[in-house]
């Protein structure tokens, strides 16, 4: 009886607090994002785990690294740089790959899982619109996962740099060459640029397509996402003996040529950003329009879809 009276006396205070907290229209979106992080812990565990394993490998082989560094003295600048940068490029590449794998896994399950475990009925009993939910789910692989992978990569590479510097200094090497060649700040800006533009915005249509399939499929969303795409391409080849569809797909998968393929490497990496070129590319905008259509379609489907 006592606890009940206490609970009742707390009513007015709680109500006021609740009203101000949930008043803003951004609130449901932000809480939907939190919900995704609670539900899909692999979103942060996988990048952190991969980074941890990589760092461990780096530490184990650090002696070998330093020996190699010693061997490059006297070589040409290009070769020196390549030798030094390789482990750091590998770290960046690893975070990109992990981000993609986790992003694909997430996008295929995001709207399918909640129907499979019937929890969609719980989510729909709350005042959050289908579009808010789908937008939150779409923004995870397109924006937030990329930002997170970038942050993990930065911390990982910083730790690698510090460890390598300490080991090199301990064996009497010059650390300054390592830092000068790597130019970490530029490296991180480049990586951020690459993750946001290519892995986020340029690949957004893939993630949006997977979300659409995940809101529609009754089972096996991965197969439904992949097989029809292959079928369309194969059919085109068979009927018209052309491969425009696969061409488009390859162009999209290859990344935006305006940013990705940096051929003349030892120039100031800042000039390679070419943000302007990227945003002027019509391919980006057709991709984003396709993304928007898939998101709207997924939101509409979520409205109609019952639990499985």
């Amino acid at each position, binding site marked *: 009886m006592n606890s009940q009276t206490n609970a009742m006396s707390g*009513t007015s205070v709680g109500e006021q607090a609740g009203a101000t907290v949930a008043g803003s229209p951004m609130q449901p979106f932000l809480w939907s994002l939190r919900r995704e992080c609670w539900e899909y812990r692999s979103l942060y565990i996988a990048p952190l785990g991969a980074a941890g394993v990589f760092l461990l490998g780096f530490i184990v082989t650090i002696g070998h690294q330093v020996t190699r560094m010693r061997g490059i003295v006297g070589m040409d600048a290009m070769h020196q740089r390549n030798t030094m940068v390789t482990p750091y490029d590998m770290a960046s590449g690893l975070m990109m790959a992990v981000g993609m794998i986790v992003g694909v896994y997430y996008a295929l399950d995001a709207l399918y899982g909640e129907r499979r475990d019937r*929890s969609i009925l719980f989510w729909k009993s709350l005042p959050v619109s289908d579009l808010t939910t789908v937008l939150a789910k779409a923004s995870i692989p397109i924006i937030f996962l990329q930002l997170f992978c970038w942050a993990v990569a930065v911390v990982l590479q910083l730790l690698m740099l510090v460890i390598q510097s300490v080991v090199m200094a301990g064996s009497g090497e010059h650390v300054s060459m390592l830092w000068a060649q790597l130019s970490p700040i530029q490296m991180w800006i480049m990586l951020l640029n690459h993750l946001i533009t290519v892995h986020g915005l340029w690949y957004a249509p893939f993630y949006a397509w997977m979300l659409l399939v995940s809101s529609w499929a009754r089972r096996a969303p991965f197969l439904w996402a992949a097989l029809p795409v292959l079928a369309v391409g194969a059919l085109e080849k068979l009927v018209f003996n052309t491969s425009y569809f696969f061409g488009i797909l390859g162009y999209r998968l290859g990344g935006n040529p305006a940013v990705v393929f940096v051929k003349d490497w030892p120039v100031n990496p800042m000039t390679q950003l070419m943000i302007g070129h990227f945003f002027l590319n019509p391919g980006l905008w057709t991709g984003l329009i396709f993304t928007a259509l898939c998101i709207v379609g997924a939101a509409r489907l979520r*409205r109609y879809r019952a639990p499985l």
Partner: protein
Amino acid sequence: MACIEARGLRKAFGAQVALDGIDLRVEEGRILGLIGPNGAGKTTALNAILGLISYEGQLNVLGRDPWSERDVLMRDVCFMADVAVMPRWIRVSQALEYMTGVHPRFNRAKAEGFLAKTDIRHTSRVRELSKGMVAQLHLALVMSLDVRLLVLDEPTLGLDILYRKQFYDSLLNDYFDQSRTIVVTTHQVDEIQDVLTDLMFINRGRIVLNTSMEDFETRYTELKVAPEQVEMARALKPIQERQSLGRTIMVFAGVERKQLASLGEVRTPSIADLFVAMMGNTNGRARGAA
């Protein structure tokens, strides 16, 4: 003011008609029991009211069209579809945080007050709780929402009798008041007989009975017929007749209780008995209290 108002509400899944143009009006402050056999259209009706499915005809819930305004409507409406819809990965503390975040009418202190009376710990995940505890948790969340309409679809399915009893007690004592409306469907009809203010039977997509419980009690009478009076009683046209422990039991609609009292023992039938009388005339004999 009507809380729910439907006119010609119809829903078909392909060739199968789940709701065949029903008219329905639920006033504010009522507790309506929606009773029907499996596949009668109960869940379809509730889903339409909650904006979970599209429909034909007119439907108005708290002045809104549920299909196009579900997210806004859910500030004033809450529902428990059944016991198994809480996401299994969520922690109790996360559920409380999330509800506080997205629902303008959620009272967290109240929910914590309800939870304090149970064995549920804030750090537990839903998957670690027993079925009864999940129902307790969901009910605690729902009862802490200051909403005007609460819809419960088989809320006690699969719970043992202690939890079921506690569930309805809690709902009546801690939640219900005259400004709130509750719509509930269940197969355990006898457990909610004393809870309801209104009763509706639905069968094959149509409403076959729509009455307040007061009218139910005056209109329907069950008579345990004295053996020598059976023919007399039959002449009054019972809507159902069955045998129980060697006695004949009849259910009458709209027959004066005084008139029947001379023919045997009279009492108000249970909802289950009336349900069987009205829906299962062919196999009424086989089913007593459901």
